[in-house]
């Protein structure tokens, strides 16, 4: 019989274990079938040497005692538990995240129905407004025109719309969380493990519960996935920026009798702005990194083309779409860096 029989015999649990079930519906391995019919290598199993001693895992213990759960019942139990909690969770989370769906839908609709000769000048105006650099403006215009020239305008704009919405929400939620973390040490201690987890968890893993929680045809599915992944740097750098404000400056602010609110808006946030902007830059870059994975849960845009390239081994399609993502990344990076440089220059003067 099995190696760990003695454990159950010694504990007097043999009766609890019971006989192996004879239900024809229960899973049964080929070895068990052969052993049952006595055709397996002549009766008793060969004695196991110490060298081959199996680890007392759930499956090994199940061999000795049929009532002991097998390890597959662990995954099954997890699944069942999640499915039971699912209805309550989606009841709360569904309405809460509905605005995200609306925002993504209207952004995608808006950017695609507006003619290109309005969208491109708007993008140019934004570039000029934040960077005030003729060189950058020319670069952005040429890149977008290049993408449009090779008929990737629609895909690129879809990707851009998704990133704008997600990055905006990341900043909207992330900066206040960062400020709260900078003000309370215990909140910081609690939040850092969560942030670490969000950053290291493979993005595919948190797609799984999301698929179960929400309808897969809703855009918020990929919205949440992108936001969870991309929100981390803006929180971290806001926290860090505010904590790094020179204590002497804070002392001076206190000496002037500033209230906490005045200190926050008048001293801490302005001085932490370069760090916060660096966080925004990283957040935008990370949401761009999620574009291809988000396309697996039906996000439109350049990611779809990359996936098509992979699935059909259409090398050209994949490469062009990948290059398009790189161009978008360079544009967004340069524009945010340029605005960061402007803020730095203003503070120096």
């Amino acid at each position, binding site marked *: 019989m099995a190696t760990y029989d003695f454990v159950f015999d010694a504990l007097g649990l043999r009766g609890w274990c019971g006989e192996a079930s004879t239900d024809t*519906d229960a*899973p049964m391995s080929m070895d068990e079938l052969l052993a049952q019919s006595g055709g397996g290598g002549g009766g008793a199993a060969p004695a196991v040497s110490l060298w081959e001693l199996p680890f007392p895992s759930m499956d090994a213990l199940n061999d000795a005692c049929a009532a002991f759960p097998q390890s597959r019942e662990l995954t099954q139990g997890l699944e069942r538990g999640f499915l039971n909690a699912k209805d309550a969770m989606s009841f709360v989370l569904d309405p809460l995240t509905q605005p995200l769906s609306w925002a993504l839908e209207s952004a995608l609709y808006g950017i695609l129905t507006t003619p290109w000769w309005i969208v491109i000048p708007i993008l140019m105006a934004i570039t000029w407004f934040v960077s005030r650099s003729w060189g950058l403006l020319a670069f952005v215009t040429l890149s977008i025109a290049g993408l449009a020239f090779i008929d990737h305008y629609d895909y690129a704009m879809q990707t851009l719309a998704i990133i704008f919405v997600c990055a905006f929400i990341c900043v909207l939620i992330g900066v206040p969380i960062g400020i709260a973390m900078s003000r309370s040490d215990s909140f910081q201690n609690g939040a850092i493990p969560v942030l670490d987890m969000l950053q290291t968890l493979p993005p595919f893993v948190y797609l799984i519960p999301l698929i179960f929680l929400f309808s897969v045809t809703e855009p918020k599915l990929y919205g949440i996935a992108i936001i969870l992944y991309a929100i981390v740097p803006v929180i971290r750098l806001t926290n860090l920026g505010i904590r790094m404000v020179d204590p002497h400056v804070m002392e001076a602010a206190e000496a002037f009798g500033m209230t906490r609110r005045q200190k926050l808006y008048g001293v801490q946030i302005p001085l932490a702005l370069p760090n916060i902007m660096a966080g925004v830059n990283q957040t935008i870059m990370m949401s761009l990194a999620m574009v291809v994975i988000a396309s697996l849960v039906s996000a439109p845009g350049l990611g779809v083309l990359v996936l098509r390239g992979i699935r059909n081994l259409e090398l050209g399609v994949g490469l062009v779409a990948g290059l398009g993502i790189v161009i978008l990344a360079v544009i967004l990076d340069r524009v945010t860096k340029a605005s960061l440089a402007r803020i730095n220059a203003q503070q120096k003067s």
Partner: protein
Amino acid sequence: MRVNEVLVPGGVEGWWIPTYLAEEHPELTTLEGIMENPDLVGGTFNNCPDGWGCRVVNDNLIRAIDLESSGLDVFNHGSGETLATSMASAYENEEPWFGYYWGPTVPLGQYDMTKVEIGEVDPEVHARNQNPDSDNPGVSDFPAAPILTSVTADLADREPQVVEFLGKMEWETDTMSSLLAWMEENNANAEETAVYFLRNYQDTWSGWLNDAARENLSALLQQG
């Protein structure tokens, strides 16, 4: 060397609705019925992900029958996983669902689906539909794809008995799907599923074997 077609009728593809929906509204089993009542199927056609062969065929069919004119939205899934999940969650909540799927697969074994009649199977039209940006897409249902057992000529020389057995081995696509569903439900591995098949589908496999082998195997199972 081709020996036999192992699955009867073969790999099935098509557009499906849940059977409970078909029972409630029998008119939905034809394409015309669906296009007249788009709300009854949830107003959405669940399409294949980009890059799949069926996506090309579906897109051409959608153009040929002008599906979107009936008020149905075509939702292009990002991956096979979301396509399957949309079907699974709709089925579990008894909601309407309409979309593409193929078998033998776990979801088609697990969920009772009814195939929507698109029209006659016309191999020529179907071949035309498999061409992206086809000029004149037509209407043709999906023909069943043959799934073959093949062996090397070497094996046929060396083990004629095994090849004879493989030549007789064939089963229904539905059986395959329900076995896959059993495997999924019990988190079983392939070997355990094989045992389950041997113990519960005697009618299916007894025709594959010669008399001596059949008696051997039955005796083995009887003892168990």
